């Protein structure tokens, strides 16, 4: 079952990619547009990850430490993007920020354009990966013993000192794996970015969009070079995730 469904497709990328020699692979990878696409993917994913980890941390803290009206509704709302098709997410962003969108139409006269920029890609990535870090961090907060924080308070620590010295170190593993998950998901994002970025080669074309564009142009080798890099990259993140939990959480 696994063979034809998972391993063979992956293997074929590598087989095809190296069939015409490593030299060709390397020059396909080093094409300026390819390098740009990879860089753009990394940079936009980095900012989306930073934002979502910080936000996820804050939201998890508030939602597991305080009980208030509408708490569960908020948890559902935060988790909602998991279930929304990425194309819908991208389309929704267009309707909001696009030149004739709900907000975009007021920004356009000021000369501010949000869509079809690197910023739009970050926005799309944030939207799509929104619940990932939150989803990893919140359970750790929930199971964390309150007595650690209470002990810190009786010892004389302020709330902030307690968070920094006691709470945060226990979240290290969750934060790292939340960040990796978010990053991996953002780097591979296609459905929403193709709608909001405009797919302009050398300007707003991310790595997955590059693969799609080159494939359409019939440049299978160019597309394949990037595909190999992305596949290797996800292997890397996966193995870090797999092994990191253990050494990050050692007491």
């Amino acid at each position, binding site marked *: 079952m696994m063979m034809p469904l998972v391993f063979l497709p992956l293997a074929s990328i590598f087989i095809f990619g190296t069939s015409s020699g490593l030299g060709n692979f390397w020059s396909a990878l080093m094409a300026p547009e390819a390098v740009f696409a990879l860089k753009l993917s990394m940079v936009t994913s980095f900012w989306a990850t930073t934002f979502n980890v910080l936000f996820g941390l804050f939201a998890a803290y508030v939602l597991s430490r305080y009980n208030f009206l509408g708490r569960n509704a908020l948890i559902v709302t935060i988790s909602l993007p998991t279930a929304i098709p990425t194309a819908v997410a991208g389309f929704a962003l267009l309707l909001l920020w696009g030149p004739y969108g709900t907000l975009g139409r007021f920004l356009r006269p000021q000369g501010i354009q949000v869509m079809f920029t690197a910023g739009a890609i970050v926005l799309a990535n944030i939207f799509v990966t929104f619940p990932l870090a939150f989803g990893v961090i919140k359970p750790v907060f929930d199971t964390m013993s309150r007595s650690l924080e209470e002990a810190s308070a009786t010892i004389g*620590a302020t709330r902030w000192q307690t968070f920094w010295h006691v709470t945060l170190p226990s979240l*290290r593993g969750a934060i790292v794996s939340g960040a990796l998950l978010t990053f991996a998901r953002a780097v591979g994002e296609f459905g929403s970015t193709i709608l909001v970025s405009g797919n302009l080669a050398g300007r707003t074309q991310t790595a997955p969009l590059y693969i799609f564009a080159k494939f359409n142009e019939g440049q299978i080798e160019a597309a394949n070079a990037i595909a190999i890099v992305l596949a290797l990259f996800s292997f890397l993140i996966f193995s870090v995730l797999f092994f990191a939990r253990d050494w990050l959480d050692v007491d």
Partner: protein
Amino acid sequence: MKAQVARIMDDSITPPLPATVSQPAASVVGVSKRFGKTSVLENISFDVAEGEALVLLGASGSGKTTILRIIAGLEQPYTGKIMLHGREVTELPARERGVGVIFQSYALFPKMTVEKNIGYGLRIRRRRRKEIRNTVNELLSLVQLEEHRKKYPSQLSGGQQQRVAIARTLAYKPEVLLFDEPFGALDAQTRVHLRREIRALLKKVNVPAIFITHDQEEALELGDRIAVINVGHIEQIGTPREVYNNPATEYVATFLGAANILEGTITHGHVVVGSAQMPARLLDDRFHDGQAIKLIFRPEDVLLNKTQEFPVGHVCLSSGVVEEISFVGAYERLRIRLEASGGACETTDQPYYLTTETPERQNAKPVIATRPKPETNAFRLHAGDRVFLGLSSFTILPNDARTSATSHPIITPSKQ
């Protein structure tokens, strides 16, 4: 209402309390607490003297942990106030109170080594590095964990973790130490060993301490004084001897150790239980003729004899028949059924009275007696033997349930 301390009537010696000339180290004044509409604490008041160890003893759900959390500042009282060395701290948050809490789970910071844990209180107070290092070294040697200083809490045994938790609070010189079920997570043997260790440690550092426990043996051994808590109020507060020997209420008598409880009445200055009666010099005018009472005595205060000639200091209660003898190691436990009629001890000084209790009802309740080995060997007993029961110490309480939480003088033959 403050529970009165029972006056000691037997020859037990009250251990001298630390001088209370100055203000108490910690005071709880009229504290009550509600969660929603449920009242969990009613008007709790007590003092802890400098260097004293007070044990709050109660069943789970009695509210004892809530008292501790209110002193620590982790809960707010509904009414009342908390004083630490004369300073009112009721409104202060936990971090400004300077109390040391040793949590049941110890709550050591898992990502910090032993020395980082101990130094935490000083680090957040931004003390100089050298001062922190010296204090940590002193405390490490005090709790004998020098060789474990670089270890993480998960690498330590339960007892070691507890010592780290204590050292961590001692680092910032707490006003009072609060121990929440300190030995709950440990096995029986370690428990006994550790509480002696902690007792010695507390005497050494001379910091007042409040312990929370549901274990009566622990309470008797750890406390300079014990406060018995029942459903949110203090039943009795006193030294272990006072509380054990002169329980102020039936609850205290049964919660702390085993107790026989027989219902009876006061008749012409006598305690009359079923057909049995004992001369009792009543020291309190709250006992009046015809009043329903409860006669409370501990199994080890029962002396069994072939005749009704008891040694001085004992009062003959009744005769009875041994129903069952069980060997429980250090002593022997006997179940004895008091005889319905004709079993009464003869008394010369007073006429004979019967109670309103029917003999049948009284007989339904057997008496438990325990005898140490020498006594067992000197006077062997078998099931079915007829014996006389003498009491060396007993307590009489009015039989009006919980309404009167105050102690009433008891009558002890040894003082007559």
